[in-house]
């Protein structure tokens, strides 16, 4: 097969697979504020003139409250807008375009049918304060989703109100606090392993807990002894990610739950990596009290370049009474929202959460069904282990053992020998046509490359990706500068992040720039 002659640096002599990255034409585009011309319009208002246009001042509004000209806003036609955002979009890489193995992000296929469903009139145009009789369809979907999430995790109940994973963490911690308060206790500490995602300590601190860090043991997982060591009456809970951010199953989790029970500390499980567990392991049996499940990861809702997501919570019966409002209930075939359950922590977000996202997850679960759920997690695990087995020949694998849904490598082999770092490798992957993995996380692995292929990817895609990384290793040895100067191909070369932080320019100014 012919091999990407137009790749900077050239293809290796005997390339077995064709790597996607090559050179192409891109189109420049200004800021939207730099486009347009006074008098252009891109909108139409329905039925103007049917009601007399009120002068706001005549309507009783004080003149200092009436706005002057909206200076700085652009004036564009609809076509201007189409072309502007079409061009912008072409500067993005996406799952639809290629392999996107960001570790811990579960970039799986986002079925297009979900977008069609979300655009159905009864979902797109529903108002959360409609009389209950008109909400039956929307509530049924929410109710059923909660029911299925509880079933899949093997816990007692669920809510889909939190807006994202971190919001779910915060909400989960409030449930734990409420649980303790109900028992008249004010516990202060939360145990957080050093491999945890940044949102874990941040969420704990946000709601006023003191964070106690626990080290990752030599096998890459938590040792129940280290938990015991940190335990005291003042511990409200542990926040344990399972599988953890090294892609490993926390084997001691059951034991940890029991140990915690001794001081009535609860087990918060960061469920961002639930894709590896669904259908395979029971959170109930693990002793989990609450876990946020990122619907925008495991349940395939599109990540949208940074949200919206949904940080659904599944909870044990211990914590169920404290779930946030409103709670969807089914009474004699009718669905309703309970706005004031007695022990609830109250409201954590407006209306019904990110309903449109929950809806997509509902559709996804209905499509997968019992078998699909199991097949998805199993495939994700096979894919990750296949990648692990192939790549460890070239890249350093700090914890050399079977993994769950992802594997964490490091730049040790390359850095020592050639000076090429994880950042360089990541940037060079861009030239090869791949999104880089998550880098420099988890912090416990210096120069980490955290790779999660998900079940959506084919063997062939993984083979290509591994080959690309092998080529980069080769390049690092033969021509390290090529790698250090990467990326060469995309619309923009390596961006100066230091400059951005040092003299922040965070907005367009009418008379600036």
């Amino acid at each position, binding site marked *: 097969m012919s091999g990407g002659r137009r790749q900077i640096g050239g293809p290796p002599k005997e390339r077995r697979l064709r790597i996607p990255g090559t050179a192409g034409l891109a189109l420049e585009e200004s800021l939207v504020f730099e486009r347009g011309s006074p008098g252009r319009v891109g909108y139409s208002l329905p039925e103007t003139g049917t009601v007399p246009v009120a002068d706001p001042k005549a309507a009783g509004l004080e003149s200092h409250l009436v706005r002057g000209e909206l200076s700085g806003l652009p004036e564009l036609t609809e076509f201007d807008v189409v072309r502007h955002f079409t061009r912008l979009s072409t500067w993005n890489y996406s799952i639809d375009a290629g392999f996107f193995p960001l570790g811990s992000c579960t970039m799986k296929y986002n079925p297009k049918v979900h977008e069609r469903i979300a655009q159905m009139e009864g979902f797109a145009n529903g108002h959360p304060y409609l009389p209950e009789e008109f909400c039956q369809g929307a509530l049924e979907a929410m109710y059923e989703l909660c029911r299925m999430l509880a079933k899949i995790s093997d816990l007692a109940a669920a809510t889909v109100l939190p807006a994202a994973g971190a919001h779910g963490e915060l909400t989960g911690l409030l449930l734990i606090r409420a649980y303790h308060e109900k028992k008249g206790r004010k516990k202060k500490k939360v145990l957080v392993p050093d491999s945890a995602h940044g949102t874990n300590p941040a969420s704990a601190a946000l709601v006023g807990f003191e964070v106690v860090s626990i080290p990752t043991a030599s096998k890459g997982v938590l040792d129940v002894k280290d938990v015991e060591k940190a335990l005291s009456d003042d511990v409200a809970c542990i926040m344990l990610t399972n599988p953890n951010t090294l892609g490993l199953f926390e084997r001691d989790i059951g034991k940890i739950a029991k140990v915690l029970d001794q001081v009535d500390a609860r087990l918060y499980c960061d469920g961002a990596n639930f894709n590896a567990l669904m259908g395979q392991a029971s959170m109930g049996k693990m002793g989990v009290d609450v876990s946020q499940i990122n619907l925008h990861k495991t349940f395939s809702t599109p990540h949208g370049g940074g949200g919206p997501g949904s940080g659904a919570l599944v909870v044990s019966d211990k914590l169920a009474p404290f779930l946030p409002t409103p709670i969807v209930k089914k009474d004699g075939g009718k669905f309703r929202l309970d706005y004031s359950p007695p022990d609830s922590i109250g409201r954590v977000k*407006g209306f019904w959460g990110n309903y449109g996202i929950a809806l997509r997850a509902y559709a996804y679960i209905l499509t997968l069904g019992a078998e699909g759920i199991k097949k998805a997690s199993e495939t994700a695990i096979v894919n990750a282990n296949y990648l692990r087995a192939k790549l460890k020949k070239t890249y350093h694998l700090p914890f050399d053992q079977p993994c769950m849904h992802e594997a964490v490598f490091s730049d040790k082999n390359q850095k020592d020998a050639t000076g090429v770092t994880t950042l360089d490798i990541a940037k060079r992957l861009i030239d090869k046509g791949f999104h880089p993995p998550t880098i420099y996380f988890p912090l416990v692995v210096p120069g980490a490359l955290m790779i999660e292929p998900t079940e959506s990817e084919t063997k062939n895609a993984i083979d290509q990706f591994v080959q690309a990384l092998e080529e980069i290793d080769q390049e690092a040895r033969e021509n390290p500068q090529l790698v250090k100067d990467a990326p060469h191909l995309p619309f923009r070369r390596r961006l100066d992040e230091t400059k951005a932080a040092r003299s922040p320019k965070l907005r367009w100014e009418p008379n600036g720039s």
Partner: protein
Amino acid sequence: MRYIPLTQKDLSEMLGTIGVSSAEDLLKQIPDELRTKGPVPIAPGLSEKALLDHLAALSRKKPESLVSFLGAGCYDHFVPSVIAPLVTRGEFATSYTPYQPEMAQGTLQAAYEFQSYVCLLTQMEVANSSMYDGSTSTAEAMLMASRVAGKKTFAVSGALHPEYLEVLRTYAKATGLHLIEAPFCAETGRTTGESLAAAAKKAGSDLAAIFVQSPNFLGVIEDWRVAQQAAKDAGALFVAVVAEATSLGLLSPPGAFGADIVCGEGQAWGLPMQWGGPFAGFFACQMKYVRQMPGRLVGETVDASGERGFVLTLATREQHIRREKATSNICTSQQLCALWATVWLSLFGKQGLRDLAAENLSRAKHLRERLGKLPGYKARFTAPTYNEFVLDCPKPAEEIVSLLSKKKIVPGAPLGRFLGKGFEKSLLVCATEMRSAEELKALEAALAEVRS
């Protein structure tokens, strides 16, 4: 399974490379007693047709012909058809948070444009690239104001959206902050200077900030100058809340009145109602507080060739760098919703935003006057309103709603649930540009009819 590519042949090759004999071997990492035995207790998978049939049936439970006058924080504005095909392009919808800026300039430039729009419309110096929604944005404003001021008590207008207030209470309780409510004036519906001053006085020296929303939950346009003055007098920060963002097309921006923080909800910028979410919260403040801001910020920079480009910046505020010392725990936010709003704002632009807001104000004013003249009905508050207003009815509002439901008209939100005693007969009625003259008349006729 049409989403999963693994075939028997691939599987056996891959297992060979891994060096195990079955996928089950890999699952031995999980202690046996924690395994899910047998099938997951949910139904078998559906074909796409069965899925669509089921969801279409659920969707149809909301009649398409409903004429609704609901607003109350979630507004029925016209959504130009051009937005969805742009925003749902795979390039935008199926990309991740832009950690690799060289592969995400589209998302980044659009986010920078969103930040700029928020700044222009609120007249603030800096804005972030989105928050979960208006309620949590307001809660983050409270947390930030507490950090900035080093104080823990807040004077909050009683005319804030009740759900925003609930979220504030949840967060305040969790973080040890205190809220003091400043009631609105029973006659005008505005939060008066006296009321704010009284609340501020209760707070004493621990007062961190004053929160006022305009248009407030009663639809009434507050006087920012009064809020500004009250904050100044109390030596507190001034936090302005905007839950109906199209109002900024016609109403003076809080930034013109020295607001320290402006937070709110961008749903009115063309986001479909979607039963209340996902929406696009926004958050703006003065530049001097930038390092205390929550959420993601996109900044301009240059690439290795000197070309303009954009990156996530000032990450040292954030959880992934600062962990427990971060300004907020936010990671995934509402970027695609912010993009949606950005496209909408670009379509409407300078003149459109103005025209749209004028049309909203006019329709609601017209309706308020008409309904206020109906025997037995009365517009409750006297201060000027934007696109919604409180209507007192001759019967319990819940009853009116259920009577009109039969005609597929939803006359507004009954306020008893939100504001309690004294509001059992009140409806919050909203008329955006979407409610035609005919529909306004239909509501008038229906209300007249159910009076007796």
